[in-house]
């Protein structure tokens, strides 16, 4: 009987090394595309969530005449809940949503060289005691804001690019969309 030729039926160290290198190459090719696809999926989901919140807030503002009351990050604002889709969450695996309200006074008079906001008629210098009934009428405008908190700053950069710097900005690990007084719906 003729013995089998050596090296034909067995596995050599070269074969093992080649197989491992091939696996490494396949992994290196597959990982970036998969990771990038997951990133863009997160960006798309965050963008859709922000649009949903903006629409719900605008609907509330149209009905109630003001923006909904703020809530902690990850919590659905009570006044907005009825206008959000069932099961809508402010907490995602990749990001956290937050609704807040910001106030601003009327812009300063352009003729004012210092641009400092002026006190109301009558002034309050020296310091006035706080009003007892807290019903002082101050020319204040209220802005709504949707903030996305994410550890991956690429998500924030993508949101900034999609919504534009005229409406939003990136700060540390969060991105904020500002809804102006008369718009945003």
């Amino acid at each position: 009987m003729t013995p089998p030729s050596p090296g034909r039926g067995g596995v050599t160290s070269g074969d093992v090394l080649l197989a491992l290198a091939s696996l490494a190459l396949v992994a290196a090719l597959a990982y970036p595309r998969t990771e990038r696809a997951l990133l863009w999926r997160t960006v798309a989901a965050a963008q859709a969530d922000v649009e949903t919140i903006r629409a719900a807030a605008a609907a509330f503002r149209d009905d109630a005449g003001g923006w909904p009351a703020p809530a902690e990050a990850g919590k659905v604002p009570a006044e907005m809940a009825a206008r959000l889709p069932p099961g809508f969450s402010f907490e995602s695996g990749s990001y956290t949503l937050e609704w807040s309200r910001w106030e601003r006074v009327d812009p300063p008079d352009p003729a004012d060289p210092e641009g400092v906001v002026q006190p109301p008629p009558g002034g309050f210098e020296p310091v006035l005691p706080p009003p007892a009934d807290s019903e002082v009428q101050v020319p204040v405008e209220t802005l709504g804001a949707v903030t996305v908190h994410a550890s991956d700053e690429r998500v924030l950069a993508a949101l900034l690019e999609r919504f534009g710097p005229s409406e939003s900005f990136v700060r540390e690990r969060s991105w904020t969309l500002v809804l102006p007084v008369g718009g945003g719906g």
Partner: protein
Amino acid sequence: MTNTDSDAPVHRISRVEDRDRLLAETLAHAEAHEAHYKVLPAGEPEHGRWKASLAAVLLVLAAWIALTPPRWVAGVEAPFPTAGERDRGLRAAIWMQASQVEVFRLREGRLPEHLSELPVQMPGLTLVRSNNRVFQIRGRLADGELLVFDSAQPSPAFEAAAPGLRAQGTP
């Protein structure tokens, strides 16, 4: 009984000489097999080097792709926020916070002791009061640069950084 079947027991191989001879033949046959397997075929060393070289090339290629994936591998690029976007974001945050302080001042007739007195705060900012009316909001960029908003001399760069915050119809 004939002796045609070689596997059938034969009386003569039971002799000591025959058994020794058969054992010696068997051992020799096994040694021949062993020797045959130990000898590499003529092309095997070249095959081994070729596989090792190819594996090294594939490993280098895999490392290059893993460290700096080209666009044709990774797809659409996903950049991080630029330094300019971070700078503008901090200015916008400072301006929003300064607006909150102004609103507080108009309502309460005084400046807040701390930003925590305000209903909303931007993280990482500090309030410095100069007197009952003038204040500063300070924040640092990632590289440590300090940005200061001074309510007595507000730089237009802060409000310009947050155009969406300006009232409707304002220039």
